[in-house]
């Protein structure tokens, strides 16, 4: 009965979403504020109803209600409670409901926070967000309903896919969707700005925090996915350039470009059309991700069950959205005409332009690599695959270019960089970069990409450190405004500097996080070492500094799985650790899953995978040394910290803030 209530609530929410959209349009065109207010209330009601709907589904999971088809397909009596709650987004229907709920949530928050400050744009924002919600709810209610019943109800469910029974997979979808859906808000503001004709900086300032929020949650979502792949899939890596992984990466790239170029519009009023184009593209790419996963057009390890019916609907939905958005952009672009004047190609503005160029080319490259196989297959008889080797060859050089620009950016002044200033600022970081290069060469990093990354990491740290140093120096020179007599200590100056310019230094922390992650990418990408061999109990093998010995084989069991487990001792420099890789069989599923045993240190991960037994008392093992993998996760942590810090800064620029 509860599920029917949830279903009913979703239907009402769908009707209210349509109401939200149409009432807003009527209200603004006929100049009736009351209708706009109705629209706003509808937004809040939609959230309440969808929360109820999702709640009934969660309740169905927690009470093992297998008469609900979705529950029967993704849960079982043996599934631990933690995963029961998260099985909600384990399948296509439930994850779409999560998408819609997040959209309703952000919709309501937008109404709550921006109602009084953006009255003229609000009707259009409501119309667009309402339309998006209606579109998703149509898909959910008519083509992918999680509320269907099964008659007769089975005694036990099919259980959640064992690969998804992992903490990483619990957090990956929500964060990823918060990112995707988060971009809907700046998108709606941008479209409203275009429609009302007020496409100046205002929409950017209003949505600055939304953009940061969406960007960082998208980043976290992508990294959780990589984390899950590393820990759960057991192939020793974390990124396969799978079409669905690419689908999440493309909006991230254009969003990063957007984050940077809006700074130019805020400060100089430039690139208005370009910024609008970027946010529309970013949100469109987020929806493209939805399409790719659910339509069955591309197959990947991620794909949900393919269903052309859904595919057709999402395609039509996307077509409407794309033509509408870009159409409005094209037809209203004349009102955005400004005479752009850039004083010098050596300036922060043009550094951002080059940053944008590289990021957009990178995104287009990923798009090409992802769509090319589809094009070949559709337009000819052949079938090609574009895998990791292609992306590594083409993509990495572009990323190195972006890394370089990331280093140049902080020290590049606005408007014009004089030669004197360049001579003053850059020699030290360049020297540091060269030192990094030599150090890497001495450490026998042979690969040019490795050398380049090492040099660039040092260069970037150099420029950022120098910028911070200069800031502190400047503050010490100015002295404290409160009392001239009081001398500032460098530490106090630093503290004041950071607190006054949270955006700037939050951004620098993010850059530092990127640098740490780059080190992780190069370390684990270029320097991975592995052995693949059969072992019997008592055998040992050497890998790098480690001596790994198989001591025993055994069996383990838990709530809903049994496993064959190997016990290995790994010894390095007198320190010994125990590793227990497993091959698990979950009762309902026939294919066993491998659980890699991973020992993480700051230097490297020791990663052991248990294979098949080919002979009596002998099992195959794959043992990897993955250097610097932990730096990936720490780098992400730094990025999160940086964004959180930047988001603390309020809207008004602090008095006396230097550019």
């Amino acid at each position, binding site marked *: 009965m509860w599920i029917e209530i949830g279903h009913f609530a979703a239907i009402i929410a769908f009707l209210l979403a349509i109401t939200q959209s149409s009432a807003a349009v009527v209200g603004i065109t006929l100049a009736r504020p009351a209708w706009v207010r109705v629209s706003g209330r509808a937004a809040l009601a939609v959230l309440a109803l969808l929360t109820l709907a999702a709640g009934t589904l969660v309740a169905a999971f927690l009470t093992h209600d297998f008469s609900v088809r979705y529950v029967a397909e993704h849960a079982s009596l043996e599934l631990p409670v933690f995963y029961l709650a998260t099985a909600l987004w384990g399948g296509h229907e439930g994850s779409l409901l999560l998408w819609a709920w997040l959209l309703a949530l952000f919709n309501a928050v937008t109404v709550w926070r921006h109602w009084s400050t953006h009255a003229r744009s609000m009707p259009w924002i409501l119309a667009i967000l309402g339309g998006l919600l209606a579109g998703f709810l149509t898909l959910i209610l008519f083509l992918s309903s999680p509320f269907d019943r099964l008659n007769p109800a089975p005694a036990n469910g099919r259980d959640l896919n064992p690969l998804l029974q992992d903490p990483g997979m619990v957090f990956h979808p929500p964060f990823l969707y918060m990112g995707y859906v988060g971009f809907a808000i700046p998108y709606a503001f941008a479209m409203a700005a275009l429609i009302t004709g007020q496409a100046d900086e205002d929409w950017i300032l209003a949505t600055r925090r939304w953009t940061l929020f969406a960007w960082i949650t998208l980043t976290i979502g992508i990294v959780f996915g990589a984390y899950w792949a590393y820990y759960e899939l057991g192939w020793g890596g974390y990124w396969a350039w799978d079409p669905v992984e690419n689908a999440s990466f493309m909006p991230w790239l254009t969003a990063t470009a957007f984050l940077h170029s809006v700074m130019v519009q805020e400060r100089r009023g430039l690139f208005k059309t370009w910024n609008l184009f970027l946010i529309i593209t970013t949100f469109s790419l987020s929806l493209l991700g939805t399409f790719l996963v659910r339509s069955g057009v591309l197959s990947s390890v991620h794909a949900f069950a393919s269903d052309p019916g859904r595919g057709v609907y999402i395609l039509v939905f996307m077509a409407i959205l794309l033509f509408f958005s870009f159409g409005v952009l094209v037809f209203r672009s004349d009102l955005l005409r400004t005479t752009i004047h850039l004083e010098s190609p050596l300036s922060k503005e043009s550094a951002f332009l080059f940053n944008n160029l590289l990021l957009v080319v990178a995104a287009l490259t990923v798009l090409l690599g992802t769509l090319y196989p*589809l094009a070949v297959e559709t337009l000819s008889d052949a079938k090609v695959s574009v895998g990791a080797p292609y992306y590594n060859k083409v993509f990495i050089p572009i990323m190195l270019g972006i890394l370089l620009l990331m280093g140049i950016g902080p020290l590049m002044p606005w408007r014009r960089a004089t030669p004197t200033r360049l001579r003053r600022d850059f020699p030290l970081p360049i020297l540091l970069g060269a030192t990094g290069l030599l150090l890497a060469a001495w450490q026998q990093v042979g690969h040019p990409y490795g050398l380049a990354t090492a040099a660039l990491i040092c260069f970037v740290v150099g420029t950022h450190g120098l910028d911070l140093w200069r800031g502190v120096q400047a503050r010490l020179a100015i002295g404290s405004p409160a009392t001239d007599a009081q001398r500032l200590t460098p530490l106090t100056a630093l503290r004041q500097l950071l607190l006054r310019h949270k955006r700037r230094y939050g951004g620098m922390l993010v850059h530092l996080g990127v640098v740490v992650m780059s080190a992780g990418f190069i370390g684990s990408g270029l320097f991975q070492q592995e052995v693949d061999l059969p072992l019997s109990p008592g055998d040992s093998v050497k890998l790098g500094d480690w001596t790994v010995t198989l001591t025993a084989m055994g069996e383990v069991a838990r709530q809903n799985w049994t496993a064959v487990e190997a016990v290995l001792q790994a010894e390095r420099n007198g320190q010994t650790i125990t590793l227990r890789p497993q091959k698990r069989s979950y009762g309902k599923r026939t294919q066993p899953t491998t659980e890699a045993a991973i020992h993480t240190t700051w230097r490297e991960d020791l990663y052991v995978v248990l294979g098949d037994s080919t002979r009596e008392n002998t099992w195959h093992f794959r043992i990897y040394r993955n250097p610097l993998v932990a730096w990936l996760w720490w780098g992400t942590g730094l990025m999160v910290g940086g964004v959180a810090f930047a988001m603390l800064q309020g809207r008004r620029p602090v008095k006396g803030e230097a550019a």
Partner: protein
Amino acid sequence: MKALWQVALLLTITAILVLFALGLHNDPHAIPSPLLNRPATDFAAPDLDGQPLRLSEHRGKWVLVNFWGSWCVSCVAEHPYLLELAKKTRNRTDFVILGVDFKDTLEGARQFLARHGNPGYRHAFDPGQKIAIDWGVYGAPESYLVDPGGVIRLKQTGPLYPGWFERVALPLIQAAPTPGGTP
């Protein structure tokens, strides 16, 4: 100049959408076979009773090589047609059916045939799927039609279906004159 960019943008979007629309009809799992019109690789393996079986023994006849396994659900759906086809073509001297049971156990294969019916032709036993890989097979069921000269003329990815022989195979067989065939 600006108009050029706008047109390019809208054209690109249209192209991508059209591509997706066409792509919806693709099967992302199907791989086109490069083995068509190339000589078939011979295989030699024991059959399910342990007797040696070679493909080249049947040179001079049309051979339908059907790859299957007792683990394969679609093979259950295909099996009635194979039974019917075997009965229909039993008296033909120019056509023979061979099965290749891959990635399977002898026990599993025997149980499958016992439960769903034994069509009467021989099956090569390929537990390590070496023959299957040698023939570019990646799923089951898949079937190849080999002509009397040993050249692969046709591949069917997925189950064979009622009417396949009359509509697809017979035209090929009748087009090429073979000695001793029943027209």
